[in-house]
C-alpha cells in the first residue's frame, strides 16, 4: 500500500511518499527526510531517545506511525536553534554538562522543551526529575540534566516576567 503524507517539519512543509505503511515517524525523519538528530535507542517507547514534538507535545517517534502524522507539525532537535543562536535549553545543557556520550541528549533536550511548555514542574527539582523520567541516560548524566532544565526554566520564567 503506497500513501502520500504532508506534514510540516521544523516549519518546512513537506510531501513525502510512503511506500511502506510500517514506517514509523522515527524512521521517516531519519531515513526519508535525512534528519538524523533524533535517535533510535530501544525503538519500543522505553528510553526517550526518539522524543520529538508533535503539534507542540513531546511524544516517542518510535511508537508513532508515519501515516498517522499526516497534516501535523513536527519539531525535532534540528528545528530548535535560530541560526547560530542556540535554544535556551540547548545552551543550558552545554553550560551544565548535561551529557557525557551525547546519545540520549537530543531526546533529553526535546523532552525538556516539552516539559517547560507543559508548565507543571516549575522550579521544583523533584518535579523536574519526575517530568524527565521518560528519558533514560546510560551515562547517568542526570545531575547535569536536572541542573540544565532548572536553569532553562529559570531563564524562561525571567524572560516571561513571571516568578513561577
Amino acid at each position, binding site marked *: 500500500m503506497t500513501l502520500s503524507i504532508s506534514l510540516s517539519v521544523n516549519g518546512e512543509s513537506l510531501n513525502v511518499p510512503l511506500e511502506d505503511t510500517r514506517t514509523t515517524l522515527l524512521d521517516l525523519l531519519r531515513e526519508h527526510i535525512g534528519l538524523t538528530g533524533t535517535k533510535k535507542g530501544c525503538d*519500543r517507547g522505553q528510553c526517550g531517545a526518539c522524543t520529538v514534538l508533535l503539534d507542540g*507535545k513531546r511524544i*516517542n517517534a518510535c511508537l508513532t506511525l508515519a501515516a498517522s502524522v499526516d497534516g501535523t507539525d513536527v519539531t525535532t532537535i534540528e528545528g530548535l536553534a535560530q541560526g547560530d543562536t542556540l535554544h535556551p535549553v540547548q545552551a543550558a545543557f552545554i553550560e551544565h554538562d548535561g551529557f557525557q556520550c551525547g546519545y540520549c541528549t537530543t531526546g533529553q533536550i526535546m523532552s525538556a522543551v516539552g516539559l517547560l511548555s507543559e508548565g507543571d514542574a516549575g522550579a521544583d527539582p523533584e518535579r523536574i526529575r519526575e517530568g524527565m523520567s521518560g528519558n533514560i541516560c546510560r551515562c547517568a548524566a542526570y545531575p547535569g540534566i536536572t541542573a540544565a532544565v532548572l536553569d532553562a526554566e529559570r531563564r524562561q520564567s525571567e524572560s516571561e516576567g513571571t516568578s513561577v
Partner: protein
Amino acid sequence: MNRFDYIRPGSVAEAVAAASEPGAAYLAGGTNLLDLMKIGVAAPDKVIDITRLPGLDRIDWLEDASVRIGAMVRNAELARNTAFSAAFPAISEALLSGASPQLRNAATVGGNLMQETRCAYFQDPLSRCNRRAPGSGCDALEGHNRSHAVLGWTPSCIATHPSDFCVPLAALGAIVEIEGPDGSREIDLAALHELPGSESAGGIALKHGEMITALRLPAEATSFAGHSRYLKLRERTSFAFALVSAAAMLSMEQGTITEARIALGAVAARPWHATDAETFLKGKKAEAEVFAEAAGIALKEASPSGDNAFKITLATRVLTRALTLAAKGTPDRVPALPASVFMSSEGATANA
C-alpha cells in the same frame, strides 16, 4: 513487523465497519499496538486509525453531574484537566504514575483500558501462552512469575492487567460505552476484563470490531474527592509498571467512614474491586488497625500463582498505607512523585 493496510475512517460507523473485517485492528495512540506488532505478537492486516474521529476527544460534564470522557482523550490531557482532577484526584494521580510523559501524551483513554498484559511469555511468540494462542499452555506457570497474579487466577492464565488508570476507575464504578457491528451497548468497567476460567485464559470482553467510544463516571463518584489516593509500588522510582498498587477513596464524617471505594492493581487479570473491604469500612472509625483489617479482608482470597507470595504481603501493606493517606486528606496538588511510596512527608515536597 507484518505488512498492513492503513485506513483512516471518517466516522465511527465507518470505523466499526472497517474493523469488523477479519484481521483488522484499531490504532489509537499506538503505544501498545505498535509495540506488539514490532515483537510479532500482533499482526493485523488492516490498521484502522481512530485518532481523528470527530467528537471522541471531549470531556463532557452531563446534567446529572456525571462525566463522560471520549475514548480519544489522551492520558496526559485527562490527568491535567483541572475540573476532572479536582473531582477525581486519585484517577489523575494514577494516570500520572503510569508510563512516561511522552507516552501519556500519546496514549488514549480507550487504549489504556484495552492494553495487553505485560507477561513476558505473552510477549514472546515462541513461548506457550493460552492468552495469545488458546490451548497452547502457559509457560509462566513454571517460569518467571514473581510479578504475576495472586487473585482470580487459574492455571489457564496467571497474568495481570497492567493499567494504573483502570484501578480507581474500577473502584468508582466506571461505565464503558461501546459501538460495534451489532449496535451500541455499555458495560461496567469491571466486566471489561474477564478472569481466566478452567479452560479459557480470560482477557478483553469485547467482540471483534467493537470499539470503546467513551467512559462515564457516575455523579456519586465525585463524593470521594476530599479523601482519595492512589499508591503504586514499583521496582524503580518512576517509569515502571506496578508490582502492586491500590486506589483508596473515602467519604468521612467526623472521623467516621461513611463510604469507601477500594481497588487493587497488578494483582489479577482485572483491576480488583475489593467490595468486601468497602462494606467492612462503612461506619468504622478511620484508624490504623481498622485499615489493616480492611486490607486483610481485601486480600483474604489471595494465593501465590508462583514465586510471588511476597506480593500478598506487599499488597496488604500498600492498601493499608493508601487508606491511611486517603483518610488524612487529598493533597492540594498531585505529589511531585505521583503515587510513590517514597513520599516521606506527605504534601510537603508536593507543595514546595
